[in-house]
């Protein structure tokens, strides 16, 4: 049961689906239900971070339509539902039929609808641990949320200069490949980028492993060296060292003549 162009137009004319004819209501809900299920399947397959229950309870056609209608409706007025105009404004008199264009616009919105649904329904069911692995597993949530220090504290200043010395020593020991991988990471450039791989002189899997090993090595060496200190202090110091290392890598980037263009055309997060 698929909607017809007239169903969409009827929906657009009225403020809500409930005011459409029964047939149109049924067909529009069936459309929402089918697109919702397709997206749900795709998005659940796309990540390992969802709770295992995700997708077990699927919404009814009515619920799918309700989620679709409420995703971008800012108020209950016609003005608050400008997303309807957005869907219809995609229509042109060119090769794509108005019907297909309207449905593709609704499908685009449905992607976000399903994502928001998974976030609200399933993200918080999972308990969060600071040891939870992130991305390729080389880092944990705790690494990304390392303790912070007060820059106004005099002790912070002293430790900051100690961290910079540490970072400079670490940097001097890095191989060219490690430097390229670290620079790409700092700039948010993918390690799969062909120019990055060419500069590193290896395949993506090797470069990813190199970067993973580098961060593990830094973490372990700091934990070893400061084993008498509390974990929060070590994590805070580690943040300062990494920040120093980032400054070193950007300074190296400015002096290195043979880096590919991608490192110069992206603004990155230079400090």
């Amino acid at each position, binding site marked *: 049961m698929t909607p017809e162009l007239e169903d969409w137009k009827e929906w657009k004319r009225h403020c809500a689906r409930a005011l459409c004819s029964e047939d149109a209501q049924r067909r529009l809900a069936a459309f929402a239900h089918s*697109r919702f299920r*397709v*997206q749900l399947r*795709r*998005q659940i397959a*796309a*990540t390992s*971070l969802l709770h295992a229950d995700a997708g077990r309870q699927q919404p009814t056609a009515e619920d799918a339509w309700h989620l679709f209608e409420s*995703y*971008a409706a*800012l108020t209950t007025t016609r*003005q*608050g539902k*400008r*997303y309807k*105009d*957005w869907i*219809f*404004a*995609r*229509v042109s*008199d060119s*090769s*794509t039929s108005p019907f297909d*264009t309207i449905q593709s616009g609704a*499908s685009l*919105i449905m*992607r*976000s609808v*399903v*994502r*928001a649904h*998974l*976030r*609200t329904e399933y*993200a*918080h069911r999972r308990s*969060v641990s600071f040891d939870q692995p*992130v*991305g390729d597993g080389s*880092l944990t*949530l*705790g690494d*990304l*949320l*390392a303790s*912070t*220090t007060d820059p106004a504290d005099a*002790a*912070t200043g002293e430790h900051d200069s100690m961290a910079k010395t540490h970072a400079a020593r670490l940097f001097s020991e890095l191989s060219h490949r490690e430097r390229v991988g670290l620079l790409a*990471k*700092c*700039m948010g450039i993918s390690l799969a980028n062909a120019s990055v791989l060419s500069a590193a002189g290896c395949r993506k899997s090797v470069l990813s492993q190199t*970067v993973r090993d580098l*961060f593990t090595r830094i973490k372990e060496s700091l934990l070893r*060296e400061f084993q008498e*200190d509390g974990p929060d202090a070590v*994590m805070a110091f580690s*943040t300062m060292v990494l920040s120093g290392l980032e400054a070193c890598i950007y300074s190296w980037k400015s002096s290195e003549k043979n880096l590919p263009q991608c490192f110069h055309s992206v603004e990155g*997060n230079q400090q």
Partner: protein
Amino acid sequence: MKKLEQLSATPGTEQEAKRLATWLLEWDLFRFSGTEEEELPSATLPVDSRQGESVAPIDEDLAAGEIRLLVPRRDELPLFIAVADIESNDQAVCVPFSPLGEPATPDELLTGRDTPAIRVFCLWNARTLARARISDSWIADKLSTAELERLVQALKGCQRDGHVPSHLRADAGPPLVHPADPRRE
């Protein structure tokens, strides 16, 4: 012997961990769910149809505090923006809303609204643009006076310090400290 004894550190909080974990999940979903070209015939920019009876005319007059939906661009998701300020030289400062539902970084802020499409301000992506460019859009709602004031304060904090002022910190994303953080992508 302790070497970092004097270092006073504030650990990441449970709330930050939860927020970051949720953002990472949504980011995964956002990145990997966008390949369904077979179901999405490519749309073209509206030309005549925008003037047609079925689509509301764009709202050309611009005012601070408006939440606007930009007219569609080729195959892009709907983009809502907030008008934060109108400058004297016919330019306007606008702040886009994030497509994701959690603030990623200290320069992203929860709006306080529940509607998924406008939950988070992307303050880092604020732009000063000619009024004419922004007014190619529809007014969808308005920020209250308090919401607008909060947005302006947050924006000023980000422009000055790179993060929102301390009284808004609880509604912003966690600090970005690690070079390999996926939020840099």
